[in-house]
Each structure stands twice: as structure tokens, then as C-alpha cells.
């Protein structure tokens, strides 16, 4: 079936099997290998992309559900010679090792920072109606949907702190 999505600013029309997930569409049909398949069941976060600005697991979404959507993948954030500030922070803080969860961590960070800026609550807030103070505990909780088996968690939090600080 035919679906048109805008990926990293470019309109793309795909005519593929209705069973094709957004993740497989990106990886197998659009050549965008940055979004990773770590579990294919929403349990690891390696496939995280931004759809209309919101971070989602692209493995648990059909391409067909995204007709007309704006999709941003890791490839849309920056390139090797023009890194996005979050990519730069990950590089400098050694916030990755094997690199397989990394695009998902970075896309998730971008989405998470917007959610925090919008004042969305988290379970570590003392009062869920209160204001968001993006402490390390908040970052850890809000990033928990991205597993890193190499366990670069301390460095990822440091990287996010460095860009969140810049933004403030």
C-alpha cells in the first residue's frame, strides 16, 4: 500500500507491504540505517525516532499509520562534519561504546528535552503538578526507555546535562 511521509525534510512515497513497520521502512526501503533494531518490541529504545517532534519506538508502528507525518531520524539531526549539539555532546562525553543504541539515545534526548521544556511530568517529581527541574534524576528517569547494554549511562547523563545547560 502507498504511504507518503516526510523524512528529514524530504517527502517520500513508499508502496510496500502493509506489515512494514516504520523502522523497517526507514532501514530497508529508505536506506536510513541509523535507526536500529535491537528488540523489535519496544523494549530497548534503539529504534527511537521523532514523529511530528515526539519520540516514539519506530519498531512498534506501521509505516501506514504515518501517512502525512514528519519523521526525523538520526540522519536528520546532523552529519559527521556538522554534528547536532547532542551528537557533539555524546562524542565528547564518550556517551556510547558499541554505538548500536546511540542513535536511539540521541533522538530520545532531543525528544525528551522538548518534553521537559514543555513541562511534562515524570515519576520522580515530588509533585506531578509542579515545574520540571531537569536534574540528573529527571534525566535518568526520562531516558530509561533507552537501554545501553555497554552501560554508558553516567556518560550519557553527563552529555545531556551539558546540552541542557547550554539550552538554559
Amino acid at each position, binding site marked *: 500500500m502507498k504511504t507518503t511521509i516526510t523524512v528529514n525534510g524530504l517527502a517520500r512515497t513508499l508502496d510496500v*507491504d502493509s*506489515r*512494514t513497520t516504520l523502522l*523497517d521502512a526507514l532501514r*530497508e526501503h529508505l536506506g*536510513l*540505517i*541509523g*535507526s*536500529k*533494531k*535491537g*528488540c*523489535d*518490541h519496544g*523494549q*530497548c529504545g*534503539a529504534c527511537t525516532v521523532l514523529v511530528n517532534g515526539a519520540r516514539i519506538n519506530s519498531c512498534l508502528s506501521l509505516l501506514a499509520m504515518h501517512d502525512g507525518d514528519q519523521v526525523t*531520524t*538520526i*540522519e536528520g*539531526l*546532523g*552529519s*559527521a*562534519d556538522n*554534528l547536532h549539539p547532542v*551528537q*557533539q555532546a555524546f*562524542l*565528547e562525553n*564518550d556517551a*556510547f*561504546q*558499541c*554505538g*548500536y543504541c*546511540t*542513535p536511539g539515545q*540521541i533522538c530520545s534526548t532531543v525528544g525528551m528535552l522538548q518534553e521537559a521544556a514543555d513541562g511534562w511530568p515524570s515519576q*520522580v517529581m515530588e509533585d506531578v503538578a509542579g515545574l520540571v527541574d531537569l536534574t*540528573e*534524576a529527571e*534525566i*535518568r*528517569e526520562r*531516558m*530509561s*526507555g533507552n*537501554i*545501553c*547494554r*555497554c*552501560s*554508558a*549511562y*553516567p*556518560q*550519557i*547523563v553527563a552529555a545531556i546535562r551539558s546540552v541542557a545547560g547550554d539550552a538554559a
Partner: protein
Amino acid sequence: MSSVKDWAAPNPITENRGGLIGKGVDRYEGRLKVTGSAPYAYEVDAPSRPAIGYMATAAIAKGRIARIDTRAAEASPGVLLVWSHLNAPAQAPRGTRANPRSQRPSNPVLASDRIDNFGQTVAFVVADTFENARAAANLIEIEYAAEPGVVDFVASLDQADQPPGEEDVHIGDFPAAYAAAPVTVDETYESPVQNHVQMEPCATTAWWDGDKVTVHTSIQMVKGGQHALAETLAIPSDHVHLLTRYIGGGFGGKGQSYDDLILAALGARALGRPVKLAYTRQQMFHGTIHRPAVSMRVRLGAQPDGRLTAFAVEAVTHCARKAIFTEHAANFSRNLYAAPNRLTGHRLVQMDLPGAGPMRAPGEAPGMLSLECAMDELAEKLGLDPIELRIRNEPDVDPETGKPFSVRQLVQCMRQGAARFGWERRNPKPGQVRDGRWLVGMGMAAAIRGNFLLPAKAGVRIDADGIITLRQGMTDIGTGTYTILAQITAETMGVPMEQVKVEMGDSDFPPAPGSGGQFGAATAGSAAYDAGMNLRKALTDLAVGDPNSPLYGGPAEYVTFENGNIAIENRSETLAALVARAAPQGVYVEGSISPAADARDYSQHTYGAHFAEVGVDTVTGEVRMRKMFGVFAAGRILNAKTARSQVTGGMIWGVGTALTESNVVDPRYGSFINQDMAGYLVPAHADIVDLDAIFLDEADDKANPMGIKGVGELGICGAGAAVANAIYNATGVRLRDYPMTPEKVLEGMLAAGL
């Protein structure tokens, strides 16, 4: 054969004039990884669009396939082939080797109707798309003739035997000394099956060109994969070109190849087009190896002053019947604490589970979970601080062999760690510190992990533009190998990092053993260093022999390499100028390393100390980390940034070991009940609070020419025990069964009346 005497001499790495050794430079391949442009095995560009493979797996633990019906799958849309044991291509019999110097034997897939473990591959589908391949695989109907198997480890402990070719180590008279000891501990500790859960499931893309196959696969050992595939397909090794440039985590689980490698190659040959195949996350749990469960009895006998007089560590573990493997969980204890009367050994149960095998720090990782808690228990009985108890049992020489230690800073690690962590805040009496609904406690543990050096080669070339390219059949599984090899090469050659390229993960390159056993950096790095030294010699000869060089005429022994220049005092030229003029086709040399015979005269290890602070929810038994700090001594550190990431990553594995990680076997089915990442819980961001590590200054000139040692596995060794000891200090509840889940902690608290 090299000698440690040669290694003690100053060299460009130990002199470190360029300052690159130890510097926390960013990862060499980092820009590719943060932009998602590093292609992993399933993502490489193939000559044409690959067909997609998908495996069907066995639903029983033991028996045979009584009937298999693949007709519906064959008729399913887009299907290109369906194989079972009835029609799979011929492969060499299991375990055979035909090629010279093969490191791995044949490992055929779909070779018979026998089922040896749950999750074994029983059929293979290739289709035009992933969606069609998966759907067709689900249409295969199989009837099994199941047979009873041995799948329950705890119920099978009485079947444990001495591992083939191994004997217990007896020193002195343990039974007598233990019987005479005034203070004793005799406890058994259990750790479960654990899984690597690498973020990238195993995957291969394969294609053929005539009778030669190219495979991109996710594997830690280049030669092992190349040889396994060649043997299985009964083709010469050099007909297999294996590439593994980016690997999404290994941790020992990708030390061997799996069915994806064989099936992708066979499928591509049968179809005459590229085929790619990945394990699903669920298939990874049963289709690849795991760390076996370990049951360890520790008996310690001490004098009132804390000196150990009797010391026994005995481990029972398991492996698959068809893949004998011993988790040497007691080995580490042979080198750790002094005690004149000693008994250490292993027992092995052969079971009908999937293959057990190495996982990050095999031996130490589960092994230290026992002894490092037993030492905590003994310290409390003696009224001693756990650090003091360890210091009182610090050996002058290796307690088993009597050999000198190459270098040993265990005591310094514990002392520095105590100071940096704030160990003096710990109340030695457990169950005393409250913070709202939490009980808070601290624990510590020692860390030890062996250091190894294996034979390896490396090639290095310099081109007319001055770019120096290191080539090695080595792998980087996230360990930082690309980066440290670039640092070693740049420092050896006296050039900036930007002038160095590193190419790895290719069976055509000079071989290195790969990533594992924390031997990678020392082994591959030493070969790279040697290749660099050989290139220096070649360039020196070129310069002093070239009338157009300012260095013409020598003396060769005064030639230096710095800042991209080759020089004799104030006579210098750039390497690029020299090569462009004197060898415009470039210069290529190789180097190698081999273990030194006299290195065996030393007891050689890496050491550390872990400190953990936890909160335990008094209502629910949930344990949450509050702080963790590690101090490590592991030779000269090549890269402050990547080395720290290695040890903190290991420490976090220790947290998972202590709190959540366990593959539970259902004995009725012989399968793991949790077989995805929602059921097998590895640590998430929220679990890791205030965790850091430092290295002590050290150089180990008995290790290799660079004085470096491995760091990839040290961080996990003992880490889980530190957490367990903190749980005890928080609650007064001593758990000896990992992981310490809320249910187990609550059970202990209820029993203690909490």
C-alpha cells in the same frame, strides 16, 4: 619468543613524547556512531538487494523432529526457499576440520532431526522481504518426539562431575586447618543463568563471487568466524572473506559464530544473490550462549586476628552436553588472599540446555559474587572492617604458586576507594541507617581479573601523503579498540592522530585474536606497536640511505620521530616528504607480538576495589542504588576516557547481576521463561546513580612492551558482591542467592521481622 627483559626498556609508548598515551581522545569512529552512519553487519551495502532470511526454532529441549511440514511456508508469498533437516544443503559433519590451522571446526545447521536444546534452529526461510520471510516461518508445522532431559540445575547438582582434564588444587591440609580454625564461615552462594543481551542481535549479510563468499557478520573473533564457515561449507579458509567492522556489543557472546553466518552463506549460494539474516531478540536468548548458573561453597577458617588459615572455594556449574565449557568460577580465588591451607576446584553438570559459554569476565564475574560476600561475613564475625580483613590477608607472593606479583595495588585500590567514597560514613552494625522509608547501607568488595597476552600480527603502511594506515584482523565491540590502536600508532610514529587511519575487522588483514578475555588492547596493541617500530626502522633506512634526505648518512640510532617529522637532531623532514620522494608507492611492514616465556614467572592480574551504597525500601524490598565508586589498577591506561567507560560499564553489569539479571529455566520445558528485554531486566538509566571510577597510576613491564593491561572485564569483577554487601549492611538480611529481587529481599526482611 620475546622476554619481559626486552619489554622493560624505554620505548616510544612508555616515553610518550607526543602525550597521546593516556589522553582521553574522542572515539576514532565516534562521528560515525553518533550520526548512525556506521554500518553494522545487517546494514552493509551488498552488490544487489539482499533476500531476507528468517529462522524457525525448536519448541522442545530434547528429542527429535517426528514430522515437519513446510508446504504452507513454501507456498507463502515471496518465499524463495525453505530448508529443514530434510533438504538443507550438505555440510561437513559437526566438529570436523579439513583446513590447516583452523581455529574452529565445522558447525552445521539443520543437519539432522535431533533436537539438543530449546530454541535450536529447525528450519530456515528466505523470502523477498522480511515480512514475507517471518510470516512463512510461522507457517511451518512441526511435530516433535520429545525425550526427557536434564534441565534443572539445582535439582541436578548430584550429577556434577570433575570437568574433563581438571583436578582440584590442594595446598597444605585444608580439612585439618578448617577444623582447627577458631572462626569459620561456611556458606553457599547461587548465581543464575545470565544473558549477554548485546544491543545488536547476531546478524550476517552474505554474497558469493564464484566460489568465494563475502560475509559481513557480528563477531568478536575474525579468524574464528572465517574458519567455522569454511569448515562447515567444506571450502578453503581463503575462500571466505569475513568482515566485522562495527559490532553492536559482544561481551563474550559473539566470541563464536552462530547459525546466521552459515545459513546466510548457504542461502546466498543457493539463490545466487545476497542474503541477510538476523536473530530476533527472542531467538538470541536460546540460540546463542549464556553464562551458566553457578553454585559456590566457600569455607573460610580464620584466626581471631583475621588471618586466614583455611580457605576453600568450590564451584558447581553447568554446560550443554554437546559443548563442554567450564565456568572457572573458583580460579580467581587462587591468587587473591593468603592462606596456607587451600582447596579450590570445579564440578560440572552436563545438561540439555542451550550452550553455556563466556560472558564478560568468565570465572571472576560469578565467582567473586561468593567469596567477596563470604569475606564480608567473616569480617563481621571477627569484628573487623572488611577492608582491614583483606589487608591482613594480603599475600606477599602468589598464594598458590609462590611466584612474585608483576605489580599488585589491591591494597592501594581499597584505601583510595575508601577515602574517595567516604567509607568512614558506614555504620558497621547493619540495619541502623534510615532515610525515610529507606534503609541505607554500604558495602565493598575487591576486584581481580587475570591479564593475558596472545599472539597477534599487525600491518602498517605509510603512503606518499604521509597518512599511516594500521590494518589488523582485530575487532572493536565498543571497547575502544579503533581509538587505542590509533593512539598507539600515532605515538609510535610521532605523528598527530589525524595522520593515522585504522582499518579492522577483515579476515584479509594480519590476524589478531579479537576481543575477549580483556586481552584485546594488550594483544592487538602490542602487535600494532611492533609494526610501528618496524615502520620506523624501514623509514630510518629509507632516509639515511637517500642522498636527497637531510638525514642521509645517518647515524640511524639517533633518528627520532616527532611531530610528523623524521629527524636527526636539527636535520629533519616530514614523513610525507620522505615517502613521497623515496618510496612514492608507499611503505608497508608488519609486526607481531607473542607471549614471553618468562612472563609466566610472575603472577599477573588487574585489581580493583568496589564501593556501593544502596537504599532498601522497607515496605517492598526494592533495592535502589545511591552511589557506586570503583578504583582500579590495570597497568598503563591508554585512553582515560574509553578506559573509564569500560570499567564503569562493568560496574553497572555488576549492579544488574546483583539486582535483576536472571534467565529462569522452566524445568517442565527446558527453556528460559524470560526471553525478551521486558522479561530479562538489564539496568536502565534510572538504576544507575552517582557512579564513577578512577585508575591508579601503574605500568606493568611484565605484561607487554607497553606496560598496559586489559580493563574490559575488571569492572564487573566483585561489583555485584559490593552491592550485596551493601544490602546486608542496610538491612541486616544476608542474601546468598542472586539476583536480589524485591521478592527475595522482602522474604529476608519478613523472616527478620522487618
